């Protein structure tokens, strides 16, 4: 049997995220342009596989069979794979897992993983209304479960009650992520800053969340190139960043199937992390930089716990200790994360991957010194599913 090939991330780019005066295809072209700037040697003919991750494209952009539409606009002619994939907020991170498998098996050599959403419509009601279709429609959505803040507000209340987590600790996550994301030119809130006073004094969205505890919904697109080590070396002179391990775990689709003792425990994330660490032959202590799914400030707190970066229940104290800041134990969301860079569902996983790629190649805006191993994480579907990918400057032996 032929030796398994090694999959690497070559580079990538995003469109400007935000409330955009643009179609989904405009933004995909912008992301391709940014990806091309990041990998100057890359030509359309180098790419033999395309995965487009999107949730809203069927409804908001009337583009149900999305992949051929993307192929045409990006000038591609894939021969190994050409698919659309949807796992909501984890779309392009899921696509990276698929690309890794395709490359290691030899089916593909160079896969373009893209993610894109056009969220904002001419009338604003439509965005919240469409959210009813991304949950378990006949059961949870008919109860009114649409936009995420109420559900995550209950998660936060329970974490505060069980573990003593405070609003100040949650605000620390938002303030920290602004110190990073303010310098990301394509971020939804790039150029903006946030103080503790502003965070704690913001208008309430859903108790206990103020405005800055919640990530925005964003229009946007991202594109990354995942390739075999051999092809990657032909496309770039930069150091190789290997996809070491992945894990994806789902246990339920709706509120009745919650796997934890309470909403404050996320055992399905713990499991996804354990699978990824095992495959990567690493432990949480090895990770130098992380991109976790900070859809809400409390999410980052719980994710640091369940991924094993601190003890369960100590996430609040961990973030205020400076652990997630530059120079801390695990600088997290160093490009601003969802809270500042924004969240076009299908595009977020690839955006995280780009930041980890840059960190491990020593070229991030907020560079973690000597970063060797990085991790990305998405949750999706009202916290029904968790997706973890681990990268390293050395392949798994």
């Amino acid at each position, binding site marked *: 049997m032929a030796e398994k090939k090694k999959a690497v991330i070559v580079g990538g780019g995003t469109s400007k995220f935000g409330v955009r005066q643009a179609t989904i295809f405009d933004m995909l072209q912008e992301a391709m342009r940014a990806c091309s700037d990041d990998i100057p040697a890359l030509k359309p003919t180098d790419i033999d596989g395309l995965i487009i991750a999107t949730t809203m494209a069927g409804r908001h952009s009337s583009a149900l069979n999305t992949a051929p539409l993307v192929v045409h606009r990006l000038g591609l002619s894939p021969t190994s794979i050409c698919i659309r994939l949807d796992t909501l907020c984890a779309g392009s991170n899921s696509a990276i897992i698929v690309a890794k498998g395709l490359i290691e098996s030899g089916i593909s050599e160079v896969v373009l993983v893209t993610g894109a959403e056009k969220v904002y419509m001419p009338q604003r009601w439509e965005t919240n209304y469409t959210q009813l279709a991304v949950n378990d*429609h*006949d059961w949870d959505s008919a*109860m009114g479960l649409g936009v995420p803040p109420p559900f995550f*507000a*209950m998660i936060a*209340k329970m974490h505060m*009650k069980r573990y003593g987590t405070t609003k100040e600790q949650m605000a620390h996550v938002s303030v920290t992520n602004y110190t990073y994301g303010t310098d990301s030119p394509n971020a939804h809130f790039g150029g903006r800053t946030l103080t503790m006073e502003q965070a704690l004094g913001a208008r309430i*969205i859903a*108790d206990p969340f103020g405005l800055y505890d919640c990530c925005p919904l964003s229009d946007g697109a991202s594109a990354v190139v995942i390739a075999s080590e051999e092809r990657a070396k032909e496309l770039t002179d930069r150091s190789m960043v290997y996809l070491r391990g992945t894990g994806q775990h789902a246990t339920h689709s709706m509120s009745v199937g*919650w796997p934890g003792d309470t909403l404050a425990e996320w055992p399905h994330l713990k499991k996804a992390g354990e699978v990824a660490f095992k495959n990567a032959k690493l432990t949480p202590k090895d990770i130098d930089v992380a991109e976790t799914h900070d859809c809400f400030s409390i999410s980052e707190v719980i994710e640091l716990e369940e991924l094993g970066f601190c003890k369960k229940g100590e996430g609040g104290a961990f973030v205020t200790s400076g652990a997630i800041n530059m120079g801390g134990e695990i600088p997290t969301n160093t490009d601003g994360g969802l809270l500042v860079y924004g969240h076009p569902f299908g595009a977020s996983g690839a955006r995280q991957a780009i930041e980890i790629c840059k960190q491990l190649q020593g070229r991030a805006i907020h560079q973690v010194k000597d970063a060797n191993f990085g991790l990305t994480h998405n949750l999706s579907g009202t916290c029904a599913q968790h997706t973890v990918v681990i990268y390293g400057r050395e392949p798994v032996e």
Partner: protein
Amino acid sequence: MADENKAEIVGTPALDGTYVAEMDIWPLECQEFNRLYPFYDNLKAGKFTTTKCKKCGHIAFPPGVICPKCWSDELEWVELPQRAKVVTLTETQAGAPLGFPSPLIMAWLTFGEDSPLKHLLGRIVNCKEGELKEGDEVQFVVFDVPSHPIEVKKETKICDRVFYAFEPMKK
């Protein structure tokens, strides 16, 4: 005249007078479209039900056509408890999806150790903002939701629908 036309909100002309199931917040509950129609018929009779597996005894929620534990299709309808306790709750003052009034109150409910249904995220109706507290008891309640048409040959049949939520226990 021109200015009046400008002020008018223009809809989606091709869909004028049509029913768009894709944009419906309620389920298609009728027998013509859903094998779980007995759940909704039972709601109309004031019963909160689900399917129990005759092979392994597992009680699933939501109900199904097979048992998710052993994949048997020999199932029977059984009743679920109609009272629950509020573990935590949330009140959405603004930004509730179209079709849901504000404040939209939702609660994480627990049905007790003996219940086959442990937890449910339930909407709370007939309740004022600030009225419901953690630890309060709530009860199952059924209400009418909008009907929808189905084309049956050249005729149009109207399907009446209901849905369920929870309300505070009368003190």
